[in-house]
């Protein structure tokens, strides 16, 4: 029982120490109109989105055509070997 109470007290003390180390904000500051703001350009994002989509689809179509062509060759060879 005493051991449990001691462990609980120890954990509480540890959490209090950690919380005390975190510095609280000094307070609210008024919004500064001239402060630098994040200005993310949209054009590169749009370009990347379209490029990725088209490249992914073109690459997938290319790999499928290659697979079809290879399998057709394999099938023709196997049929020729059978004869």
């Amino acid at each position, binding site marked *: 029982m005493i051991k449990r109470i001691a462990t609980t007290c120890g954990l509480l003390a540890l959490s209090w120490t950690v919380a005390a180390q975190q510095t609280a904000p000094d307070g609210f500051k008024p919004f500064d109109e001239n402060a630098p703001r994040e200005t993310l350009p949209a054009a590169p994002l749009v370009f990347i*989105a379209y490029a*990725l*989509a088209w490249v992914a689809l073109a690459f997938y179509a290319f790999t499928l055509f290659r697979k*079809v062509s290879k399998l057709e060759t*394999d099938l023709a060879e196997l049929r020729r*070997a059978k004869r």
Partner: protein
Amino acid sequence: MPRAIPLFLIVAAAMLAASPFLIDAAPPEATMGLVQKIFYVHLPSAILFLVAALICGGSSAVYLAGGRKPGADRAAVAAAELAIIFGLITIVTGPLWGRKAWGVWWAWEPRLTSTLVMWLLFGAYSLVRRFGGPGSELLSAGVGMFGMALVPFVYWSVNFWRTLHPKTTVLPTLPASMGLPLWWSFVAFTFLFMALMGLRMRVERLRAAVDDAFADAEG
């Protein structure tokens, strides 16, 4: 090769080549500006991701309940792979749009999270299929049906829960100037989807034929 596949590919390529001009002519959205133009690639790929999931689940159900027909299995495999491709495009283009519109690349909100879960499920389908060994077609069919069951949750998640993502009511209210490039892009993507589906099914058909021919040659 069926004549429809190259025909669909040519139509899709021609329409996709013309789409930048239509998208450029569409007005930028009032609050989001230029970045909203990602919509014209994001939405068609997202719809086709859901369509692929429905085809995979439906074909899997036919395969399990309809006497293990290989055609149904081939359609399920092809649709699962297309779900991964179109899902990937959706999941990549969405954050590119969201970074500018919402200020974050990703948010763990219902639409995005359910879409990611569904995409991972089709990834699981393909992994089961590739590494599952004999009998994996039955197990993957079950996974495909589970993936199909997620489609309504993904689609209506924006209406059921509070979310950052635009609701499904955006489409009917779209002005014609934005609707034309959207539906143009959607039709182009659909032609491409059909061509890729046909090609992927052909790969499966040829693989089965090669396996049979090899077994004949060995036996």
